[in-house]
C-alpha cells in the first residue's frame, strides 16, 4: 500500500517537473538567470568576495611579501591607524576634498547648466567645451597643471607681470590641496552640467508661467521652483560626486602633488593614497585593509546621511 502511494507520488512529481519544464514562464526565468549568471559570478568573484576578505585581512598582521602565516591580531591595526598622524591627516584631507570638492562641483555644474539652459544659440558647442575636460585623461591634465603652476610657470609669470610676488602653489602645504581640488572641480563640471541640464528639462514650463502671473521675482522662482524640483538631481549628484571624489582623489593627488605621494608634508594625502602606500610601498596589507574597512564604513555612513538629509519630497 505504502509502496503504491510512493510510486504515485513519484509519478506525480515527475509529471509536475515535465510540466514545469514546458512552462513558458519557467523557461523565461531560466534564460534570464543563466544570462545574468556570468555578471553575477564576476561580481561575486571580483568585487564581493575580495571586499569581504578585506575585513578578514584587516584584523591580521599581514605582510604582502610573506607567504604566511598571517596571525590574527584583533584590533591592533585599527589602534595603530588611530595613532598614526599621517592617517589622521589623510582623513582630514579627505573631508576637505569632499566638502569643498563636492560643493564646488555642484555649484559650478548648476551655474553652467542654468546659463546653458537660458541660451538658444551655440548650445551644442558650449556643451562640448564644458564636457571635454571630463573625458580628458586625468594624468595628462594633472601634468599640464603642474607645468602651469610651476615657480617658473605661466601663472607666476602673470603674477609677476602685474606686480605680485610669485607663489609656490603646489610646493606649498597651504595652497596645494586647494589647487588640486580646483583642478578636480574644473574637470567634473561637465559631468554635473549634463545631470543638471537633464533635471532642468524635466521641470514643466507652466510652473514658471504661473509664477510669472503671480508676480514672482527671478530669485523667488529659482528658490521656490527650480531648486526644490531639482532636488532628486542634487541628491544623486552629491552622492555620486562624493564617491567619485573619494576615488579620483587618488589619480589627481598622485600626479599633481610634488613628490607624487601626497606632499608637501602630507598636506594633500587622501585616505586612498595612504591605503595604496601602506599596501604597496610598505607591504603592510593588514594596516591597509584596516584603513579600507574604515573608509568603507565612512562612505556607507556618509551616503546614508546624504540620502536621509538631502532627500525631500516636493509636490506641486
Amino acid at each position, binding site marked *: 500500500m505504502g509502496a503504491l502511494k510512493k510510486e504515485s507520488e513519484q509519478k506525480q512529481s515527475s509529471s*509536475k*517537473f515535465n510540466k*514545469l519544464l514546458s512552462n513558458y514562464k519557467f523557461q523565461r526565468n531560466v534564460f534570464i*538567470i543563466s544570462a545574468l*549568471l556570468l555578471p*553575477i*559570478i564576476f561580481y*561575486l*568573484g571580483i568585487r564581493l*568576495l575580495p571586499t569581504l576578505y578585506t575585513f578578514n585581512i584587516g584584523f591580521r598582521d599581514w*605582510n*604582502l*611579501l*610573506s*607567504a604566511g602565516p598571517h596571525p590574527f591580531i584583533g584590533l591592533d591595526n585599527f589602534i595603530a591607524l588611530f595613532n598614526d598622524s599621517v592617517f589622521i591627516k589623510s582623513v582630514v584631507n579627505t573631508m576637505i576634498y569632499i566638502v569643498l570638492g563636492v560643493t564646488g562641483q555642484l555649484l559650478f555644474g548648476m551655474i553652467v547648466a542654468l546659463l546653458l539652459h537660458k541660451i538658444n544659440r551655440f548650445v551644442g558647442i558650449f556643451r562640448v567645451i564644458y564636457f571635454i575636460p571630463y573625458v580628458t585623461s586625468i594624468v595628462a591634465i594633472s601634468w599640464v597643471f*603642474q*607645468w602651469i603652476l*610651476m*615657480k*617658473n610657470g605661466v601663472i*607666476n609669470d602673470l603674477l*609677476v607681470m602685474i606686480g605680485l*610676488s*610669485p607663489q*609656490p602653489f*603646489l*610646493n*606649498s*602645504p597651504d595652497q596645494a590641496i586647494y589647487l588640486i581640488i580646483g583642478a578636480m572641480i574644473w574637470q567634473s563640471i561637465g559631468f554635473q552640467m549634463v545631470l543638471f541640464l537633464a533635471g532642468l528639462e524635466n521641470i514643466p514650463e507652466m510652473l514658471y508661467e504661473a509664477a510669472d502671473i503671480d508676480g514672482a521675482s527671478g530669485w523667488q522662482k529659482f528658490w521656490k521652483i527650480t531648486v526644490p524640483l531639482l532636488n532628486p538631481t542634487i541628491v544623486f549628484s552629491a552622492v555620486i560626486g562624493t564617491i567619485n571624489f573619494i576615488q579620483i582623489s587618488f589619480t589627481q593627488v598622485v600626479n599633481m602633488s*610634488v*613628490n607624487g*605621494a601626497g*606632499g*608637501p*608634508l*602630507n598636506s594633500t594625502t587622501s585616505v586612498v593614497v595612504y591605503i595604496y602606500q601602506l599596501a*604597496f*610601498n*610598505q*607591504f603592510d596589507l593588514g594596516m591597509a585593509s584596516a584603513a579600507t574597512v574604515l573608509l568603507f564604513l565612512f562612505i556607507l555612513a556618509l551616503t546614508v546621511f546624504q540620502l536621509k538629509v538631502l532627500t525631500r519630497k516636493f509636490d506641486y
Partner: protein
Amino acid sequence: MLKNWRALLYLCLVALILAACSDSEEGTEEEEGDVITLEYWQYAFDAKVDLMDELIEEFESENPGIKVEQTNFPYDQYNEQVAVQVPAGNGPDIINLFYGWVPMYVDSGYLQPLPQDAFPHEEIEDEFFPLVEATKLDGEYWTIPTAVRTLALLYNKDLFEEAGLDPDSPPETWDELEEYALELTKSDDSGRLEQSGLAWEPAQQGHHWLRDGLTIQNGGQVLSDDRREVVWGEGDAGLEAFKYWLSFPTDLNTSEVGFFTDDVTAFMTEKAAMNIDGSFRIGTLQKDAPDLNYGVAPMPGKDEKSTGASFWTNGITADVEGEKLDAAVKFLEFLTSKEVMEKWLDGTGELPAREDVAMQDKFTEDEIYGPFIESLPFANAHFFVDETKERDLVIDAADRVLLEGMSPEESFEILVEETQALFNEYWSER
C-alpha cells in the same frame, strides 16, 4: 521547486569560484628532460635588460643544462609587482633588488642566505668593496651585487665658462661649492631663479648626499656601528651638515626644490649648472642630452672624504632548493665574475663591485667614470631599514624648514627622532 533551483545555482557558483581559485598550484615546476629553468627578475632598464639577454645566452652556452628566463618590471612598480606575485605562488628564483629594500625582503622571509661554500664571507669581504656589507643582516650575506654606483658632482662646462669659471677646476671643498653655486646662479627682478647654480632635490639623490656625503665628510655618522642607534644628532657634525645642505635653497638662494620639475631635467636642459648625481645617470645623459658639455668631479668634501653609494643586488628566493639551487648559485657566480663586471660597466655604466676589477687603470683614468670609481674606496651605502620611509623623513625635514619656517635645529631633531623610531621598530622584531 524554485528553491531547489536556487540552491543548485549557488552550488554551481561556489564550484566555479573554487575552480577558478585553485588553478595556480600546478605549472610552476617545469621539467623538460634534465633542463633546469631559472627565473630571473630585474627592473626594466633598457641597457641592463639588453646586456642581461646577452649574458644569459653566454651562460646558457657554457651550462647546457640550465636555462634562464628574464622578466622585467618598471622600476616604480617593481616592489608592487613582486608583492602581487607572491600570494599567487609565482615568482623568481633569482631576484635583483635595490639594496635598501633587502632588509624588508629578508624580514618577510622572501630570500635565503647565500650559501657559504660558494660565497664565503671572508672572500666577499676581501674582494668586494666594503659597502656591500649593507645587505649583511643577522650575520648572513643575503645578496651579492654585480655592480655599484657612486655619487659625484656633475657640472656643465659651458655654463662654467659663461660665468668666468675654469671648467677644468671644479669645486673641491664645501666653501668652493658655495662660491661656485653663487657664481652660477641667475635670478630675475622678482627674485625667481632663472638658472640654478646647484640643483637640489631631496627626493632624488639629495637625501643620499646628506647622509652618506655631507654628514660623514663633516666627521659625523648617521648610525652607530651596530646599526641600531641613530647617532646623527650626537655632536654638531650632523646638524652642521644638515644646515650646510639647506643653505643652498635658503641663505644662498642658488637652488629650489622642483626647479624645472627635477634636478635631472634641470641639469639636462642647462637650467642647473651643477648637480650631485650618480654614475647611473651617465647613460641617460648620453642618450637624452648628447650635446651637453659636462664634466664629472668627486663630490666636494670637508674634513673627511665620503660619497654616497648604492647598488642593485642579486638574491636567491627562499623556496629554491636542490639542483635548482646549484644552478642558481652557478648563475650568481657567473653574474659576479670579473668578466661580467667589465662588460657591465661598458653596457650599463655601473661600476664593478670587486675592488681589483674596478681599480684598473683603464677605468680609473676614464674621463667620465674615473671620478666615480676613484670615489669607491671611501663610498658609503647607508643601511636602510625602509628606504622609502627614510627618504620621506628627509624630504619632510627639508620641507619643514623651507615651507613652514621651522628652525633647522628643531627640524633636524625631529628627523633624528623619527629615524630612530623606524630603527627601533625594525630591531624590536628580531
